[in-house]
């Protein structure tokens, strides 16, 4: 029954990430909301790869072959890639937020409306 809550956490993480994206006005907080959603998706992948009382898929000094049960390796390889991509997106968005602040002296979305001579 406890594994049921794994999926609840995934859905709640993604849900609160999306809610923050709609209501938050500060640029940095939007980056944090994005990280929450990425964490939710990573957890979803790991939940797919779980096997009851399976060990990590590493054979060095693993228990005897008989009762060896291993967790699936592919989602963990993808999460490795997704974490680094999440880091990349966050690093770039924080850089752009710093530059926006340096040019416009505000981080609030409402004040950062589109170009002045817009339509």
């Amino acid at each position, binding site marked *: 029954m406890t594994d049921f809550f794994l999926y609840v956490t995934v859905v709640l993480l993604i849900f609160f990430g999306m809610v923050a994206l709609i209501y938050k006005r500060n640029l940095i907080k939007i980056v944090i909301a994005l990280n929450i959603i990425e964490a939710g*998706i990573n957890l979803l*992948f790991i939940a797919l790869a779980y096997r009851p009382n399976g060990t990590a898929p590493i054979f060095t000094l693993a228990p005897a072959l008989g009762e060896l049960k291993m967790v699936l390796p592919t989602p963990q390889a993808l999460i490795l890639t997704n974490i680094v991509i999440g880091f990349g997106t966050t690093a*770039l968005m924080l850089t752009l937020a710093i*530059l*926006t602040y340096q040019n416009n002296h505000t981080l609030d979305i409402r004040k950062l409306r589109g*170009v002045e001579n*817009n339509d």
Partner: protein
Amino acid sequence: MTDHIPVLIIALPLLTAFILPIVGMINTRLRNILVFLVIAAVNLMLISLVQRVSIGGEVLHYVVGAADPLQVIREGLDFPIRIVLKIDGFSLFMALISGVITFVVFLFSLSYIKEGERKNYYQLLMLLIFVGMLGMEFTNDLFNFFVFLEILSIASAALVAYRTDRKHPPYAGYKYMLVSAIATSFLLMGIALCYAQYGSFNIDYIHGMMKYTLLDKMALVFMLVPLAMKAGAIPMHMWVPDTYSEAPAPISALLKTASMASLYGLFRLSFSLFGNPLEGGGMNYHTLGWIIIVMGVLSMFVGVTMALVQNDVKRLMAYHAVSQTGYMLLGVGVGIAVHAQADGGSAFKLFGRVAMMGGIFHMMNHAFYKGLLFLTSGVMARRFGTRDLNRMVGLAHRDTFTTVAFVIGALAIAGIPPLNGFSSKILLYESVYQFSPLLSIIAIFVSVLTLASFMKVFYSAFMGPERKDMIIDATPVSKGMILGMSILCVLVVGFGLFPDLVVGTIVEPAIESLVTIL
């Protein structure tokens, strides 16, 4: 060596991108020559494939890292275990567009962007956008499609914010990055659901095992709507004008082709992953077709009405990019909807296929004339130091070539007969009319408004007396810029006069590879 071509096309520019910082430290002329050679080499490789893949109808497979790269599934297994690259008519068609536009943008930005330390990074990121587009178009693996889409998004977000000293580009880069990050996160959710169902990431394998359960349809939604957002379809298009107007001009042309690679992703997933409309399957394609049609028509209308009232040249052209994407969506949407009719594909053979042909041919035409227009808008903005139409006058006196290029681009986007906009729009009008006349009438009306808004730009920026005092940057247009623009002009006029040359050899095989024709 020729059967290694699919991976060489992606790995060669990647290798150059990796050694570019080192070469850039040595000297910049060598770096320019190196990047020029690589883009030209990749284009030649692509053109050499046209004979085998488009005309010959052969589908190239390449398993990266396997003992035998051409054998997709090993004997003992019934599923692929490595990443498989697949080149068929449609992906080669898109790769050719990306190749031509990247070559032209490279030539244009040789002199448009001032030489300096940052130019190293500019050329590096431009090359990596090219790699991202090619990667997206060649993979047959969902997670690999996600990784290359991410390469594309991060590289173009950084290039959108290239002019960090100005007020708005960093915020435009931030918007583009946020939109792309959200879109790719939802795409990854769809991929996770597909992986949970079928244990594999290979598009063809999943297509074979597809059961159309509720989860598959959810995966479809989580994959298609974000890709439509990245392609700039209504109602998620608002980031397009903010981003294209702040980016340097050659980068907006490259961004437009990058968003068309997401449109390719949309069509590839809706056809190759979620079942072919012809085989029916559990998916109701009529509704999927109508969703895409509604998105297309709305994009067309809202894009052009917003463009009419713009004062800013690049924002006006960005809104036109949104409205022209509506044409492509309309074409392929009608193709899908007609395909799903239960009359055994006779209606499809009559006009559904022509609608898809018009939609996909319009992708190539649109890339060329929109690239041309963005490049000319770059010259206009550089000349007058501003993007506001009211503060531009009499450019025709000084840059006659840019005026000719602009006129060709404007007439092509409005669909005037001898140019290539007409050849794809006439296919669209005819076939969509037989599907439902109202859509065709809206499409024609939108073309009229497109011509109206470009008349406004022509009269305000090019006509009028010559004013020396309003010219900010008087350096004449350099050879690289003229060469870039002339390549696009030749393509726009050439495909307009001889459309069958292109439709017969490239566009029709693209449709056959997408939809199994009866």
